[in-house]
């Protein structure tokens, strides 16, 4: 009797589980939402696309663009953003998202044109576009506007950081290649010390000094062959160090540019490219 009871329970549970329609639009959307909030964007997009076949949903269309954008697939994000209708409640957000994708795709001409349009519009996110445009200007080669006007769109807490970036962009702490070379010509190694390669500078000074001393003493003691070999080596290290100091200044300047660019990029990432915060996963 007990066995029959267990069998009935088991069978009914199996039967019951078959009743759920996993492919219904509601369930597809639930699953897609779960994947989206789990940052499994690629699979979430697949499920959302399936859902959109059955239901026209502005929110889901927008979430697809956010999913693409989160994966840095800017091309698809831009394509999908173009499909968002003017009547959609997410139309305004789609514009600033489009600007972000254009920035990440490095399409400068289109980015600045769209940014200007958005800034001059009555959009809710006009100021966000203004901030993104100005921050992007820090990474471009174009001349920056006056500091006062440059800082206008930024919030109070952002102004300090942006002001520092502005000053660094205007007056980067570069080292002069010519000065590095001249310094090393006067005192071997000093050019490298100037470019903060302290170890290399001291080594260059010691090597040049050592071979010059060896050449000098050998000439003095009438060993011309050895003396000329040491003199050649000393001259090699001397010229090599002048050359290396110029190269070292170039590398130092490349490091300054790299750190500046990384700093601005990190700031933008931290600010989520001035896009609004969405609470889709609450």
């Amino acid at each position: 009797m007990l066995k029959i009871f267990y069998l009935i329970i088991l069978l009914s549970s199996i039967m019951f589980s078959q009743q759920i329609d996993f492919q219904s639009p509601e369930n597809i959307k639930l699953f897609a939402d779960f994947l989206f909030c789990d940052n499994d964007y690629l699979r979430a997009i697949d499920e959302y696309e399936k859902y959109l076949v059955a239901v026209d949903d502005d929110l889901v269309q927008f979430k697809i663009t956010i999913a693409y954008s989160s994966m840095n697939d800017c091309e698809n994000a831009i394509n999908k953003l173009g499909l968002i209708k003017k009547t959609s409640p997410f139309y305004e957000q789609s514009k600033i998202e489009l600007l972000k994708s254009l920035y990440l795709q490095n399409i400068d001409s289109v980015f600045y044109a769209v940014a200007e349009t958005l800034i001059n519009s009555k959009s809710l996110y006009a100021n966000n576009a203004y901030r993104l445009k100005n921050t992007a200007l820090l990474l471009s080669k174009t001349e920056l506007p006056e500091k006062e006007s440059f800082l206008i769109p930024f919030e109070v807490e952002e102004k300090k950081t942006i002001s520092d970036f502005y000053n660094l962009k205007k007056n980067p702490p570069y080292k002069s290649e010519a000065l590095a070379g001249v310094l090393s010509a006067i005192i071997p190694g000093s050019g490298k010390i100037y470019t903060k390669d302290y170890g290399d500078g001291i080594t260059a000074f010691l090597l040049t000094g050592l071979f010059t001393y060896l050449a000098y003493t050998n000439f003095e003691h009438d060993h011309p062959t050895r003396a000329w070999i040491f003199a050649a080596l000393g001259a090699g290290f001397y010229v090599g160090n002048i050359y290396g100091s110029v190269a070292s200044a170039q590398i130092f300047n490349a490091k300054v540019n790299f750190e500046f660019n990384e700093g601005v990029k990190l700031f933008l990432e931290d600010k989520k490219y001035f896009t609004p915060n969405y609470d889709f996963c609450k």
Partner: protein
Amino acid sequence: MIINKKYLLSILFIYQVAIYSQTDWVRWEKSDLTYQLKNNYLEREYDLSIESVSDVIVKPVINAYWFFVSDVDGANCPFQPSCSSFLVQSIKETNVFQGVVMFFDRFTRDTNIFGRHEHYPRYGKNHFYDPVSLYTLEEENINYIPAKTYVNE
């Protein structure tokens, strides 16, 4: 015939373990041990072809150094490319005079044993990455890589 369940279960278990262990042939096959360090970062291009006047002197000297000294002594240069490869590459990318001057500068960096870890990106486990492109004095060729970053070319 009455079969003892305990024995049957044990036999089945042992049999299954024995069968399963035999399926993974590749993993368990016999292999000869080698204690030789991998030197795949060393790309010796033993080449005596003459492409320029400088090759008449430089290439035989470098090839002889690699064959008689470097390959016998082992890969002791802390940099990638090694100092001798740096000389060959720098001459190839610039000219013989600039290449030799670049080599003297590289040799200075090689002699300095202080602060390397804070200065250079890493190449493999034991080498610092210091490519020729940083020193040709052509700023557009400088691809700055921060120190301590692992580089795989």
